């Protein structure tokens, strides 16, 4: 283990670190938006769109991100749709993450207890009022743990961006290994870099889960 090698590589890794953060943040934000819309279309069983949303979720969840990216990056240009690698990465992450987030929201909505829904109905609520006052507020709170798990999952998935040469963390490490053959040093920095992102974040998310749970259900 050569510490000088590590030290010299830090500026490169810092760039990759930033890019990983930025791509993750954009992808996750987009995925949350897609997830909310898709889960609502499914919850309200909107004709046509609800079914399409269901199909989208199954396709996106049951295929690897790598193939989704290859499609975007290598196959779409043949049809005249050309995006930069980073754009492909974000689109891919939103496509994959949107489906996972939608499942998270749907799980929350379905997790609202039947007795809660019935008390709403017994008060004369229609379907829309039930959603607005009972299912959505409680369902969103219930979905937080799943959403938090998805956030962690999606950040880790950005490592796959290295296959389309986006210089994020993993790609940076692989490039450096290719140039200088110091695999131990660079892999160590790489693992530590992910730990720096993911350990504090998962602690924060666990805290958030508890807060939301308590604020909504009091336990």
């Amino acid at each position, binding site marked *: 283990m050569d510490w000088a090698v590590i030290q010299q590589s830090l500026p490169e890794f810092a760039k990759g670190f930033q890019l990983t953060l930025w791509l993750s943040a954009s992808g996750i934000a987009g995925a949350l938006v897609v997830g909310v819309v898709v889960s609502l279309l499914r919850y309200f069983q909107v004709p046509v769109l609800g079914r399409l949303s269901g199909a989208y979720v199954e396709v996106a969840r049951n295929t690897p991100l790598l193939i989704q990216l290859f499609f975007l990056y290598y196959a779409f240009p043949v049809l005249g749709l050309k995006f930069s690698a980073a754009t492909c990465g974000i689109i891919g992450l939103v496509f994959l993450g949107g489906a996972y987030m939608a499942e998270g929201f749907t799980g929350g909505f379905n997790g609202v207890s039947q007795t809660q829904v019935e008390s709403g109905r017994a008060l004369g609520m229609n379907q829309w009022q039930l959603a607005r006052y009972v299912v959505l507020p409680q369902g969103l709170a219930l979905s937080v743990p799943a959403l938090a798990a998805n956030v962690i999952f999606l950040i880790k998935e950005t490592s796959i961006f290295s296959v389309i040469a986006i210089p994020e963390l993993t790609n940076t490490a692989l490039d450096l290994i290719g140039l200088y053959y110091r695999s131990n040093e660079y892999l160590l920095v790489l*693992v530590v870099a992910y730990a720096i992102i993911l350990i504090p974040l998962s602690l924060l998310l666990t805290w958030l889960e508890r807060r939301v749970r308590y604020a909504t259900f009091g336990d």
Partner: protein
Amino acid sequence: MPHSGINVLFEGHNLVRLLGGLWTTVWIAALALVLGLSLGALLGALRTLKNPVLRLGLRLYLEFFRIVPTVVLLFLAYYLVPELFHVDSLPGSWMAVIAFGLWVAAEFSDIVRGALLSVPVHQRESGLALGMNRWQLFRYVLLPQALKLELPATINLATRVIKTTSLLMLISVMDVINIGQQIIEANNTTYRTGVFWVYGVIFIFYFVVDYPLSRWAQRLAAQQKV
């Protein structure tokens, strides 16, 4: 169109080659699952014991695999296994089995632990009241209930492993994607849209394997709710 891209699939042995790659993918996933689930069940059971050192060690093991992306795990195996065990000629596919197997073991240990702890106390106590020892309790009371409870999560883990095999090409395993890329490159000039069809077929391969599994998991989970 004289050279419609779809024909690239029927050129020479291309389809057979792709299916061969799929087979590589499948056996690596299957082997990693068998290894990982066995090891994970053991680790999960150990994590329910009181020994603090054991618990901390196993917890750290789990957290390591939670933090490190699978791509990175593959490269760790690729670079470190030969160095640690002084073997030079271990094929990439075996390193993938090791990396995925250890990863599955970590994830499954947490599933097993959760399931064992969720078996109600009175079940445990009625087992003890029947004069069972610890092993009999585990074998006849806890394990069967836990397995049933966690089958959906386990199936979902399997679908993740299958999807993760898409990364095999990164360490030069001749999996379905790697072969697909070779076919695309070899036919680039004749079939310009071939790339679309080859990736399309691979996409469908994955979907056809994973979709029924996740539906199965969903159905089981829904049944358990009632």
